[in-house]
Structures are given as C-alpha cells and as structure tokens.
C-alpha cells in the first residue's frame, strides 16, 4: 500500500513537471488508501498489532502533509482552480475517513492490551499460593516444635533433697492448686529439725487460702495465712515453738519469692 501511494505521489510530481512545460492536465488527486490494519494482521500478537497501527497512523500524517502542500501549490499555479478545488474537497473527505479508521484501530488495539490483564491476575494468584505454602510450612514447624515441648520421655524430677516419703500428687485441678513435693527445713547447724512431709495443698475457699499440712502422726493440720495452727495434734512445748518458728520462716521465704 505504501508503495502504491509513493507511486501516486511520484505521478503528482510528474504532473507538476508537465505543467511547468506548459501542458495542461486534469489533476487527479488519488484518494488516500483506506488500509485498515485489522484484517491484515490478525495472526500477530496484540503488542505488534498496536505498534503497526501506530506506525501506519504516523505514515498517514506525513502523506496528508505532502498532499496538502501539493494541492496548495497546484491551486496557486494552475488556472482551472475550480477543478482543483473540487478534487481537493473529495481528497479531504477521503482523508478524514481514513484518519478516523486508523484512529479507531489504534484505540481498539490499545484498549484490548489494557483490558488483557490476565497475566497480572495470574501472577497475583501464584504469589498468594506461595505465601500460603510458606505459612503452612511455618505452622507445621511450630506445631512440630510444640509437640516436642509437650511430650517428654523424662518426667520432671524433683531434687531428692526435697522429696519425701509421702505421695506426690501429679494432677492439677482447675479449682485447686496443688504443689507437690516437700521441704525439709534445716537449722543453721545442718541438722534436720522438722520435716514437713506429704503435700501442701492450697484451697481457695472464698477469700481465704488454707494450707493443709500432714501432721506427724498422720493427722492433718490446717494453716491459715495468719499462720495460726489449727488442729488437735499435740506437740511438745519446745518442739512446738521451734516448729512454729521454722514454719513461719519458711512461709516468709515463700512470700518473698512470690513477690
């Protein structure tokens, strides 16, 4: 198509030369080629089609400029101005139609490319899948690590120093808090003065915490936070005082630790 148009332009220039020589001719301004690129390049990809249509539009602009210059020169030099005017009018109509056609193809190609966002959505989906996988791996690793924390072949052992002959409770109730183990309170000389064996059990009875301690002969001793000993167990005078003193010291230590 471009070759044909170039040939036609060459014909125009030849015509001008002929006029210069004195011959009069009917100027036939060839119509602008209405080449729509839509049918020609269906097999090409969208980007190439858009580029091709844009290139054709630019070529059309240059052709229109050349045709306008030619028509102006011919009108000024030629005597039959009416004929030139009529031919110029028909050429303008065809040129406008061609321009609209080319603009339509360019705009349609560009819109198609902009609407074709499937690649972006696909990549977005792929990235979401990758993120899900990573999260799953993280969760799996965390759960696996937690499992190692929960299960232990070796149970917790208390230091034999603090173990007693009594039973060691293992259950933890939601309503009561049981502390296992026992303590042996020793005096400054290192001798065992009084052993609190068995279990400590803190029972929350409303607002009061009550400690249950096993006595020496198996009878329980109730101890309140006010450190008053309650029970029917009779203990000897000095031993009793020493026992109280040791127990109070032990409780004060526990208090300090809890604070």
């Amino acid at each position, binding site marked *: 198509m471009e070759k044909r148009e170039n040939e036609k332009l060459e014909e125009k220039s030849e015509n001008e030369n002929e006029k210069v020589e004195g011959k009069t001719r009917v100027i036939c301004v060839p119509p602008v080629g209405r080449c729509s690129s839509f049918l020609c390049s269906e097999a090409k990809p969208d980007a190439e089609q858009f580029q091709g249509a844009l290139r054709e539009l630019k070529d059309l602009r240059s052709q229109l400029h050349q045709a306008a210059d030619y028509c102006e020169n011919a009108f000024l030099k030629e005597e039959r101005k009416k004929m030139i005017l009529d031919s110029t009018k028909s050429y303008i109509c065809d040129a*406008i139609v061609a321009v609209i056609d080319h*603009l339509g193809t360019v705009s349609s190609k560009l819109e198609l490319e902009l609407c074709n966002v499937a690649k*972006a959505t696909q990549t977005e989906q792929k990235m979401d899948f990758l993120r899900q996988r990573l999260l799953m791996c993280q969760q799996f690793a965390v759960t696996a690590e937690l499992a190692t924390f929960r299960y232990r072949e070796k149970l917790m052992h208390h230091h034999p120093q603090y173990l007693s002959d009594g039973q060691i409770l293992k259950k933890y109730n939601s309503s009561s808090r049981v502390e296992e183990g026992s303590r042996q309170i020793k005096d400054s000389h290192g001798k065992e003065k009084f052993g609190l064996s068995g279990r400590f059990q803190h029972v929350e009875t409303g607002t009061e915490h009550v400690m249950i301690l096993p006595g020496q002969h198996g009878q329980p001793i109730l101890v309140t936070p006010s450190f008053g000993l309650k029970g029917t167990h009779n203990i000897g005078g000095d031993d009793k005082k020493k026992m109280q003193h040791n127990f109070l010291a032990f409780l004060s230590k526990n208090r300090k630790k809890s604070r």
Partner: protein
Amino acid sequence: MARAGGISNPVNVGIAVQADWENREFISNISLNVRRLFEFLLQFEATTKSKLASLNEKLDVLERKLEVLEVQVSSATTNPSVFN
C-alpha cells in the same frame, strides 16, 4: 448588450456567492468533524491514563508482595532455625 452584461453580472455574482456559501458550509462541516475527532482523542487519553495508572498500582503491589516473599524464602533457606 449592456443590459445583457448588466444581467449577467448579478447572475455571476449570485453564482459566486452560492459557490462561496457552499464552500463555507463544507469547511464548517469539516471543522466540526475535526473538533469531534479531537474531543474523542481527549476522552480516550483520559480513560487510557486512568487505566494505565490502575495497572501501575497493581504492578507496584505485586512487586512489593514479591519482595516480601523473596525475603521470607531466603530467610527460611538460610536460617531454618527461625522456624524451630
């Protein structure tokens, strides 16, 4: 003859005026269509700009997500103890 010349003159003038009016009408039609074409181009440019801006935003978001994923994967491969 003079009358003929006098009659022909207004006829010629009338014909010339008519031709002139036709030319002017043609020119006005052409200019109107060119302006419509220009308006279409402006509208097309605005819509294309907005579409391109939205596409650019999407691509930016995708790029950031990709960077985050790259960092996470690299940290997981280099320091597997992160998950332990």
